[in-house]
């Protein structure tokens, strides 16, 4: 057994590295402030607005955009779409990093982060949807970690351990889809308890379904976006099979995303009908709702379909980024913008720059970790010594 030698080159001062370094340094500074002066010194949270962007972005958006892992592994291993095989490892990696960062972000947001295991080891609040979210996120992070380990174990040359983990692929995939279904939907269901605070155009008994279905869109779109970025910056790391399959993955996922978005659009309309909230469409919130549902659901659905039919990768990639933005907008709407809609503007929330700083810090850590792992481990190529799984 021989461990690989990690040669850390001297950092070159590329624009990316400079920006990343600044974000990390500032982030560390805010971290010190957060844990010495408290949330009041670093956030604009208030008694009316207990959740800010550390929940609205880091948790709600973070979990949705990390859905690529379960979507891709399910497509490949369960639905038998073997041509997507090379997309599985990158998707699992970004999923794993995404969830790890969500959990990291929660340490900033909750008042006493060292108590995060309390719901499991001290008292179980099983009537809470947050309990379900916490349990599933904790379990799924573990699943993603195990699903990711073959890459690390191949890198480390631990053949037997790697082969053992690979044998668990099917079980882990199924477990991952179950857990993802549960917590993706529960993130939406968190808001079911507050019908008086969430605008009727967004509040719906279907919130859980909305969040689950749109997480599939988020997962598919993120795989396309990440694939495009990986091709741009890590082309040299990709093997022949990866390059050959990449276009097929993007086109196939675009087609799937178009269908799922179509279903999601219908669901959103059903939501408005069920709440009989049509008259709200004629208000300012109504206009914003239409921007979300037409501009970021219906149109991406349409353009995904065109891109897939014309086999036009540019349209597909552009639309994927568009759909991702749509998911961000949706989570912001539910968590922040349409939430507390009844309060006067003086009581509404806008993030403190330090909150944005921490969110950027966490995203940057994710990008750096991705860079390191992709540069050293067999993510974008198959390790020559191992059978693919």
């Amino acid at each position, binding site marked *: 057994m021989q461990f690989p030698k990690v040669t850390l080159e001297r950092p070159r001062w590329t624009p990316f590295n400079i920006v990343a370094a600044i974000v990390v340094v500032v982030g560390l500074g805010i971290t010190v402030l*957060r*844990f*010495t*002066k*408290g*949330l*009041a*010194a670093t956030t604009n*949270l*208030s*008694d*009316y607005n*207990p*959740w800010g962007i550390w929940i609205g972005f880091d948790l709600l958006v973070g979990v949705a955009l990390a859905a690529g892992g379960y979507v891709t592994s399910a497509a490949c*291993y*369960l*639905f*038998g779409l073997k041509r997507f095989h090379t997309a599985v490892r990158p998707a699992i990696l970004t999923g794993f990093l995404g969830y790890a960062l969500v959990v990291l972000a929660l340490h900033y*947001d*909750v*008042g*006493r*982060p060292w*108590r*995060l295991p*309390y*719901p499991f080891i*001290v*008292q*179980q*609040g099983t*009537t*809470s*949807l*947050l*309990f*379900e979210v*916490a349990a599933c996120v904790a379990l799924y992070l573990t699943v993603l970690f195990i699903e990711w380990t073959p890459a690390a174990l191949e890198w480390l040359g631990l053949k037997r351990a790697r082969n053992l983990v690979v044998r668990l692929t*099917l079980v882990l*995939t*199924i*477990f991952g*889809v*179950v857990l993802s*279904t*549960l917590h993706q*939907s*529960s993130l939406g*269901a*968190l*808001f*079911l*308890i*507050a*019908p*008086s*605070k969430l605008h009727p155009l967004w509040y719906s*008994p279907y919130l*859980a379904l909305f969040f689950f279905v749109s997480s599939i869109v988020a997962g598919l779109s993120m795989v396309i976006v990440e694939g495009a970025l990986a091709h741009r910056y890590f082309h040299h790391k990709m093997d022949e099979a990866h390059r050959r399959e990449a276009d097929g993955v993007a086109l196939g996922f675009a087609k799937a995303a178009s269908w799922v978005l179509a279903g999601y659009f219908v669901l959103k309309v059903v939501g408005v009908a069920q709440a009989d909230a049509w008259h709200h469409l004629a208000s300012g919130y109504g206009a914003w709702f239409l921007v979300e549902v037409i501009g970021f659901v219906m149109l991406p659905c349409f353009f995904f379909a065109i891109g897939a039919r014309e086999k036009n990768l540019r349209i597909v990639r552009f639309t994927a980024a568009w759909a991702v933005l749509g998911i961000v907008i949706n989570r912001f709407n539910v968590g922040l913008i349409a939430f507390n809609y*009844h309060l006067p503007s003086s009581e509404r929330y806008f993030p403190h720059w330090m909150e944005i700083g921490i969110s950027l810090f966490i995203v940057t850590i994710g990008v750096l970790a991705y860079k390191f792992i992709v540069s050293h481990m067999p993510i974008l190529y198959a390790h020559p010594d191992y059978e693919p799984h």
Partner: protein
Amino acid sequence: MSISRRRFLGWMGAAGAGLAAGGRAHAAALPPSGGHPDALGVLFDVTRCIGCRKCEEACNRVNELPPPERPFQDLGVLQKTRRTDARTYTVVNRYEGIPGAKGPLYRKIQCNHCLEPACASACFVRAFTKNPDGAVTYDESVCVGCRYCMIACPFEIPTYEYDKALTPRVMKCTFCHPRLVQGLLPGCVEACPSEALTFGRRRDLLRIARERMAQFPGRYLDHIYGEFEMGGTAWMTISGVPFAAIGMREDLGTTPAPELTKGALGVVPVVAAMWPVLLTGIYAINRRRDRIAREEREAAVAAAVARAEAEAKKKLAEALAKAEKDKKAAIEREVKKALEEAARARGEAPAGPAPGTPGATKPA
């Protein structure tokens, strides 16, 4: 805790109200007080409140909260609408210019101690407890600080100590639970000089509210706020003006908070049970389809090979047969030719044997 008759009479004496009637006749009446028929409550009468802030002062004192920025005697504070915060469990707000009201009206805010509290239902460490005496209390020793209780509360009551770095707590009215245990009245009730706050068993309070409405026709709206709101609350309000005019939401509905999430929670075991079956099924179907496709492919190849072989055999046989025939024909042709030649030779010597007769031999 159970409420002894003696302690109850003590409260009633302190509250100055002759509520000792009732006894156990209604003990089985579940809905008016949730699962605790003897649960206590407070009735706030907007028409009686004079906005003196004595309740705020008492609350601050008995709960040992930090001193206020401006003294409780300073009524100028009322110019701004306030809410509960981490240093204040209860506040009184002033509402002016309300149609139908002669002067300004005042409303006291504090935890309403829901019969089925949203905060308790939302808490993922069960930090909140609905006590049998009606109080909803909070246990800071388990609180993680996720603040989902604050999201969940329809009355926007729980607050958070955002300025504490390491030991922030959720802060909210406790119904003076520690005092109730000792047989004392809640601080605010005790301090109220105008009897705007009536303390008693919740089911008695509902009756008292109705009696006041009957006694003073036209003084109250026919609505006890909190009787049904969000499934009912221990603290209730009666008023002569619409509740919305004094900052109370009238659109909360009557569904208790736990009902709102019941459906979503009910789906969890279904997904946990059925998804593995469904997904394994999909996997198995795809594997089977792959296997059958492979078998069919193999069978097709085998059939094609067999067909090709048979064809080849047939062709070979035909070719052989043809070759045989050709050979025969060639022999016959040769024989014929030989005979003709022999006949021609016999023509030159006519006494020769007829063609085809045995004995005729091919000339050498």
